[in-house]
């Protein structure tokens, strides 16, 4: 069989992007205003406002830096502007992004004020967008694709059809050398032993079980009734009754390949060779996609039953649904309709090939529903209160 190729942007460090943005990254909430102002003045830039970045400390601060610098380093970003109230933290984020070899400019607000920062950053951003506009898509092997998967507002149609079909596509992508990340730690409850059994390396399996247990122990330590949160109201409306049922549906999208890496919040994605990677994430859609993108995912496959609408400012999020009602009532949000698999009108292979082919088209530049509808959710995970 002919090896499929994608047309992507090869970055300075050899990684491959499927979009070509200039990112405007505020280090903290106070810098959102200036970052958004620059993005309004300069076409081709994308601001990623968020509510954090002040008085965080320890692992929580490390995670914010990891997410901000990882987002700037994402191969979908041609170059980045970092704006922060204080110069030191802004430089920390920028220096990490600069390790990729891409252009980064830093603008501290203290001592300058918003208006001067907006003007100076906009002048640089204009140059950067024009530079980026000359970068061309080139044919690259599918093995350069780093992507991620997650489901949201799931229902029983996810476990019956959209997740197994995505699992088929994931197997095929990994066969061609792509790397696929998955997470949703708490949402593996009831199927965590199945996930663990697919990790052959003992040390990695122990690491996975430690991450899983710590996460669930924290949730249970809160002593609250989780029904309505996990499963969510939407899950319940769609027929999912318990966390175990949701988890067993969830893991259908993992395909059948061995899990060869296990990443905690701060662990970077190892370079080279295709793999199926567990990443410790919350199961909240935007938080998970934000963390995957920060670890280098350039494209996300998102299955939904009841109709989650999540997107990301810098990576395309492909919506896949098998629920015939959702496909009809929320049609503008769904990229790939596999409701015919639920009704057994097509085979798993046919539905899986449909998802695989759509993934290639999106990698080549086709815009997803979430991109066109401006679903630009950027939600760093916060681990605990600020000082």
């Amino acid at each position, binding site marked *: 069989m002919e090896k499929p190729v994608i047309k992507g942007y090869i970055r300075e460090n050899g990684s491959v992007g499927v979009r070509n943005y200039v990112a405007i990254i505020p280090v903290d909430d106070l810098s959102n205003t200036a970052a958004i102002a620059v993005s309004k003045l300069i076409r081709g830039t994308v601001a990623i406002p968020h509510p954090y970045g002040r008085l965080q400390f320890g692992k929580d601060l490390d995670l914010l830096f990891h997410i901000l610098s990882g987002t700037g380093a994402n191969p979908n970003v041609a170059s980045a502007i970092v704006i922060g109230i204080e110069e030191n933290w802004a430089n920390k984020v920028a220096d990490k992004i600069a390790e990729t070899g891409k252009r980064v400019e830093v603008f501290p607000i203290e001592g300058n004020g918003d208006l001067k920062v907006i003007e100076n950053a906009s002048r640089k951003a204009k140059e950067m967008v024009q530079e980026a506009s000359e970068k061309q898509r080139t044919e690259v092997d599918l093995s350069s694709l780093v992507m991620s998967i997650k489901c949201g507002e799931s229902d*029983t149609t996810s476990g019956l059809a959209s997740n197994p079909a995505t699992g088929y596509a994931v197997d095929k992508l990994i066969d061609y050398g792509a790397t696929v990340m998955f997470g949703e730690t708490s949402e593996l409850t*009831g199927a965590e032993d199945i996930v663990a059994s697919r990790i052959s390396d003992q040390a990695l399996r122990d690491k996975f079980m430690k991450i899983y247990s710590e996460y669930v122990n924290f949730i249970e330590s809160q002593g609250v009734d989780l029904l309505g949160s996990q499963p969510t109201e939407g899950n*319940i409306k769609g*027929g999912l009754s*318990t*966390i*175990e049922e949701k988890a067993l549906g969830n893991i259908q999208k993992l395909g059948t390949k061995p899990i060869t890496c296990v990443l905690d919040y701060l662990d970077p994605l190892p370079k080279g060779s295709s793999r199926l990677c567990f990443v410790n994430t919350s199961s909240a859609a935007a938080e998970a996609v934000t963390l995957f993108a920060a670890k280098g995912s350039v494209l996300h496959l998102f299955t939904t039953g009841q109709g989650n609408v999540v997107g990301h400012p810098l990576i395309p999020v492909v919506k896949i649904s098998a*629920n*015939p009602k959702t496909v009809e009532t929320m049609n503008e949000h769904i990229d790939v309709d596999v409701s015919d698999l639920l009704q057994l009108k097509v085979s798993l292979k046919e539905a899986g090939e449909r998802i695989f082919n759509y993934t290639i088209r999106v990698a080549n530049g086709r815009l997803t529903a979430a991109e066109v509808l401006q679903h630009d959710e950027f939600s760093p995970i916060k681990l605990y209160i600020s000082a």
Partner: protein
Amino acid sequence: MPHFLIHNKNDNVGVAITDIKAGEEVEGVYLEDLSQGPKVKALNDIPLGHKIALKDIKQGEIVIKYGRPIGKATKDIKIGEHVHIHNIISNRWGKWRSQ
């Protein structure tokens, strides 16, 4: 088209793939090999995506889907009944809820 699908031959619940009305005689298909599953008379309305009992399930008995436990019955469930949060509960979370 079948009315419901069954993930695994050991399952005691099926999943409606169409809106089922109370009193309807409905047919299922096993996803494993697409073979014909049981015929059941629905005792309640069962919306698309919701579960239908394929056997009588006694209070405290395990509810099985994907060939795996997904919780336990909090009351006796009759064959053909709607199975959801009103009559099953997680074995893992929610232990503090009334059982």
